[in-house]
Structures are given as C-alpha cells and as structure tokens.
C-alpha cells in the first residue's frame, strides 16, 4: 500500500537545471533551405570547402527519410519550424573571458561549470557551448604548451582548416543517416581536440553543452584526433531548460585514433526529459562513432544517459587497425514517459580486434528503454573477439525494457559472446532492505548503483561520483 505510491514518488525529482538565461540572442528565421545554410556558413566566416560540405549534406538529407526502425514513438518533427542558428549577442571579437557577458558566466556557474580564472575547475579543461556557439575554453595556453589543441570547432575551422578538411566527415559521412546529414548541413559549434604524436593529454578535456532557447535546435559537432601513441580522456555534459515544447538536438561526434593511441569519451547526458505527462523535453538524436585506424589503438565510450524525452544514440567503433580495441559502457535511465533506444555498433574489420559491451538499462515510471546493438565480424577479422552484456532493471510495473542484439559474422575464426538479463526491483527486495533499517530511497539507490557498478567503474573518478549522485537524484522522491 504505502510502498506502491512511494515507488512512484521516488522517481519524481524536479529538474535542477531547468532555468532559462535571460539574454539577448541573435536568431535567424525559422526553417531550413539552402539560403539558411549559406547564412550560417557566412555568419561563421567559413572557407568554401565547408560550405560545399554543408550544401552537399543538405542535398543528401532532402532525399533521405527519417528513420522509424527504433522502438520510439513521437510526434513528427517539423523541420521547418526550427531555428537553426541562435547565439547570445556579444561583441564581435572576444579577447578574454572578461568580455564574455556575465550572464553567460553566471549560467555556467549555476550549472556547476565555473569558467572564470579564479573559479575554474582545476583538473579539467572546459569548452562551454551555449546554444549554437562556444562561449569559452579554459586552460588553452597550458594545453598548447603540450601541443594539444582544444578549442571550438568554429575556431578550428579558422585556425586548423587543414585538419578539419582532412578528417571532418571521415568517420560519420554526411550520408550516414538522416540526423547525421542534417547535422552536417547545419552544425553550429562543438569542440575540436587534437593530441599530437606521443602526447598524453595532461588533463581531462570536457565540453559542456547548454541549450537555452526553446525554439532552436542544437547541432553540435565534435571532432577528436589522437595521433600515434597519444592519449586523451574527454568528458561531455549536457543540460537544458524546461520548455513545454520539444527541442531537437542532433549531434555528431567523430573520433579518430591512430597507432597505439587511446581515446576515452565519457558522457553524462542530463538534457531536460519533459514533465511527468511527457510534455516537453529534448529529442536527442545523436551519431557518435570512433574509428580505430591505427594498430593497437583503443576507443572507449562510456555514457550515463539520464535525460531527454527521446534518446536515439549508438556510440560505435570501427575497428580497422590490427589489435585495436573498442569499448562501450552504458547506463541509460528512463523515467516517466521518457524513451531511450540506445546501444552500440562494434564493427570488427581488422584482425585480432577486440570489443567489450556492457549496457545497463534502468526503466522506471511509464518509460521505455531499449538496447540495440550490432556486433559485426568482417571477413578479415580473424582472431577477433567480442563480449557483450546487456542487463535491464525495471522499477515499478509500468516500465518496459527491450534488448535487440544483432550479430553478423563473416569470419568463422572469431568469437562473439552475448549475455543478457532482466531484473525488477521488487517490493520484497525493498522490504528486506527496509526491514534492516535502510531508508526506502537509499534502498532503491543502493540497488541501482549495485546494478550499474560495472559501468561506473569505467568512468573517470569525478564523473563516477557525479553519475552516482545523478542517478540517486533522478530516483529520489519528494518524500521527506
């Protein structure tokens, strides 16, 4: 009797990041056509190759159909009703952080990402993206001493055009899928990372994406290149205000790892998820892919997905280099009427490649949580191995969980191992913990963290603590 309601209450936690920053913004008119794309490119003072890249992508996008194979249901998106460029108005050229609108700095302060010299996080360099533009990047000089480039992608287009031209769209081609094509046509900003040969990046790099406008989409683009024998750990965080309309977020992330290099990409996604009735929230359609080009290169994705009304996201690895390694560690929590269709693709192309997939889906409320994954062994992937483990946890009796593992092997001399399980937090388990003096909420949170442990162990230290707190928060009720 009591507990049944509590299970419902416990998953009701107000969204802490739902405020809107009142700031004058420059927005272009709604809608999408060639002129809009030219306008975006012009605003960003882009070289011709990039405008061509955008226009080509747009032509492809126009011929494509929005995918409907995911286990998601949502109202059709009107792509002409979206603003494709929105930027806070500020001075033309900003020389230092002192010139950044204090309102913007305050916004990131409130989000726990202080940017100013006095307050900035000491162990992480941050690139802060607000709607369509990057506001500031910390520790740039320090990183530059090591030859590390960490800046917004718009700046990279200006200052490192050669690298952009060489790598942009090589991992996720514009024609890859509907949302990647859209992003390629209209992407506004995002982060760029380049780690030179032999360099271990001296600190974690991090991007923080903030959607502020209700009617603008966010289409960021991230490109990370790790040269031979280099390594980097990159963290990504996201929040958005609460609007009763749905905001489209269609990002593309490309990672490139050369011989003996490693990239660790961790995400804590906490976009606004909509309210209990499913009104509002971010539609999150993201294409993330890493290419292990080099021998013994390694790309590791870890993600904690707790937000968004819709999540459509499959961070993947193309394992080309001999003995390259791909990893995917994921926790996806859905609540209320959230829907997530997420997973990974591990494409084994080179010999002796190895991949590990550990996915933990937690569904509460009336939410729907699906794991969708592909493991493919190509003809040359001799001696390659994959291990997948997909576990689902249900909280309450209204939530649903699905697992769709696809396996394609063209190489008999390879191993694929798949394990899956589903469990439910039962009233009996909760009563057992409570009857040992453990408070209801702590009991739920203990069980959820226990369930996610294998993934949390993979997150960078400060992120792991944050993820644990975030899950507890998401599951914490208005009780007490």
């Amino acid at each position, binding site marked *: *009797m*009591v*507990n*049944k309601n509590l299970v419902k209450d416990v998953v009701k936690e107000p969204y802490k990041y739902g405020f809107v920053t009142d700031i004058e913004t420059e927005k272009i008119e709604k809608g999408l056509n060639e002129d809009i794309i030219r306008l975006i490119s012009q605003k960003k003072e882009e070289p011709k190759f990039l405008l061509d890249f955008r226009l080509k992508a747009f032509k492809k996008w126009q011929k494509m159909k929005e995918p409907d194979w995911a286990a998601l249901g949502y109202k059709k998106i009107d792509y002409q009703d979206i603003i494709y460029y929105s930027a806070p108005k500020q001075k033309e050229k900003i020389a230092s952080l002192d010139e950044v609108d204090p309102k913007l700095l305050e916004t990131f302060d409130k989000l726990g990402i202080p940017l100013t010299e006095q307050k900035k996080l000491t162990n992480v360099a941050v690139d802060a993206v607000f709607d369509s533009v990057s506001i500031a990047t910390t520790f740039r000089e320090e990183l530059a001493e090591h030859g590390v480039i960490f800046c917004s992608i718009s700046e990279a287009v200006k200052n490192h055009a050669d690298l952009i031209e060489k790598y942009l769209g090589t991992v996720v081609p514009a024609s890859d899928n509907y949302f990647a094509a859209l992003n390629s046509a209209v992407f506004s900003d995002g982060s760029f990372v380049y780690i030179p040969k032999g360099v271990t990046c001296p600190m974690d790099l991090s991007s923080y994406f903030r959607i502020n406008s209700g009617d603008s989409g966010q289409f960021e683009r991230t490109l990370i290149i790790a040269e031979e024998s280099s390594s980097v750990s990159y963290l990504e965080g996201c929040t958005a205000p609460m609007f009763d309309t749905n905001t489209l977020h269609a990002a593309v992330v490309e990672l490139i790892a050369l011989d003996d290099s490693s990239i660790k990409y961790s995400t804590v996604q906490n976009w606004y998820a909509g309210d209990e009735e499913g009104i509002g929230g971010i539609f999150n359609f993201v294409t993330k892919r890493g290419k292990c080009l080099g021998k013994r290169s390694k790309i590791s994705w870890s993600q904690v997905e707790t937000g968004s009304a819709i999540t459509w996201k499959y961070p993947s690895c193309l394992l080309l280099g001999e003995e390259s390694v791909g990893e995917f560690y994921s926790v996806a929590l859905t609540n209320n009427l959230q829907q997530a269709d997420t997973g990974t693709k591990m494409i084994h192309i080179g010999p002796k490649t190895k991949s590990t997939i550990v996915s933990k889906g937690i569904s509460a409320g009336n939410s729907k949580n699906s794991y969708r994954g592909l493991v493919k062994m190509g003809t040359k992937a001799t001696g390659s191995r994959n291990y997948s483990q997909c576990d689902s946890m249900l909280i309450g009796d209204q939530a649903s969980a699905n697992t769709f593992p696809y396996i394609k092997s063209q190489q008999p001399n390879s191993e694929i191992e798949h394990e899956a399980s589903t*469990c439910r937090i*039962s*009233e*009996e*388990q909760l*009563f*057992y*913990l*409570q*009857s*040992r*003096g*453990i*408070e*209801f909420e*702590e009991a739920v949170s*203990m*069980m959820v*963290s*226990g*369930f996610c*442990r294998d993934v949390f162990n993979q997150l960078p230290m400060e992120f792991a603590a944050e993820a644990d707190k975030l899950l507890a928060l998401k599951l914490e009720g208005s009780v007490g």
Partner: protein
Amino acid sequence: MQSKMKESHPILEVKNLFASTDNLPILKGVSLTVYPGEIHAIMGRNGCGKSTLSKIIAGHPSYKITNGDIKFLGENINSLEPEERSQSGIFLGFQYPIEIPGVSNLEFLRVSTNARRKFLNKEELDTFDFEELVKEKLEIVKMDQAFLSRSVNQGFSGGEKKRNEILQMALLEPKIAILDETDSGLDIDALRIVASGIKRISNAQTGIILITHYQRLLDEIKPNYVHVMSDGQIIKTGESDLALELEKKGYEWTDNFIKRPK
C-alpha cells in the same frame, strides 16, 4: 496464562490484531505480549497466519491493519515505516531471505548496522572499524569472510542464507527478534549454529519469537511459552511441554480448541 503481574514493562504487545491483504482477512484478532527475557514459540499449520503476523510486526507494506494495535516498548507502531521499526530494535529473520544482486553483503551489513547505531546515538562505523566488528560476529555463525564480498544472499545455499540472517541479528542487537522458520531446511550442524546464535542474543533484556514447525529447534532453545495459531487466531497457549504434546498429537488435536461461532 500470562495474567500474572510482571515487574517489567512488555517489549511487544499485540492487541486484538486484525489484518488483511487485498481485502482478504488473514489475522482475526491476535493478542500476544512478550516481556524482556522471554522466548515465545508460535506453531501452527501452513497458512494459519504465522508468517503474516511476523511481517506485520516488521511493517510489511502489503498488509493492512484493520483493527487492533501493535505496541513496541509502550509506543504504538502501527504507522511506522519498516526501517524505523528496525532502527528502534525490531528484527525479523526471514523465512526466505531475499537476494539483492549487485549490492555487496559487507556494504549492506554496514549500512544496516549504522542505521541502528545512529538511532542508539552510537558512533557510525567506517569500513575499517566495521570489518573488525563483523569479523567477530562471523564467528558466531561460523561464516567465512568470503561471504562479505558476495552480493546479498545471491547464490547462497539455504543454510548460508539463514546464517546470514543470524549474522544480521547479531550485528543489529535487537530488542525483539522474530525468527520466521529460521530452522526449516537446515541440516543438524547448521541448526546448532543457528540455535547458538539465537542463544547469544537472548538475554534478560530481549524478547524472542520463534515461528517453527519443529520440536528440534525447541530442544535447543527452550521457550517460555508456546502458542498455537489457526485461521488467524491464537487458539491455545501453553508452556514448553505444549510443543511436545503437539508433536505427539498433531494439529488435528488443536482443532478442538477453535472457538466456533455460535
């Protein structure tokens, strides 16, 4: 039978308790009083309401008290949450201890013990201090330290689960322990270990309720009172020899004591 005046105050008083689940009445007027130092045994056929009584005292949310009171140390606890009951000193040993995958037994025991210690205004124990304490208590149930690093009850044998219950009881040092068929499914050695664990916590200040089908536990731990339950009521109460008589004559014999509605 229990009418003689006692000098101390009762630990637990169940007064004319009626309870139901899904509108199905299970308890139909149970009264039971446990004074400090007493051991009570409750016997009866399966489905007579023994386990339900124990769960209701522990605060299980699936049951609704429709009439009557449960008092613990003089306070009515009808509306307390299960965790509050545990923290204040009520322990239920489960007939079927629940498996909690992913949660380490050590962490579970520590959080649980600290919840009780906090209530008693005792200092909460960090991992190191707690490990010292738990090692000491492991001796009582003859359990290996390897149990601590496993998930709570997961993959434990029946006997291991029951010993884990006794370990929890030893750590929580409750005022009253209700042990629901803790003896069932145990071999003779495990039964002795469990019995000696129960004896360890039983003293002049605590009360114990043993729910059991078998005389063999009562051979190890002699109860002061034996109650026989049938159809949601206690139909007979006696001293320890009642259990022996019951074993000889069977539950059919006790059917004679059922008060039939006129």
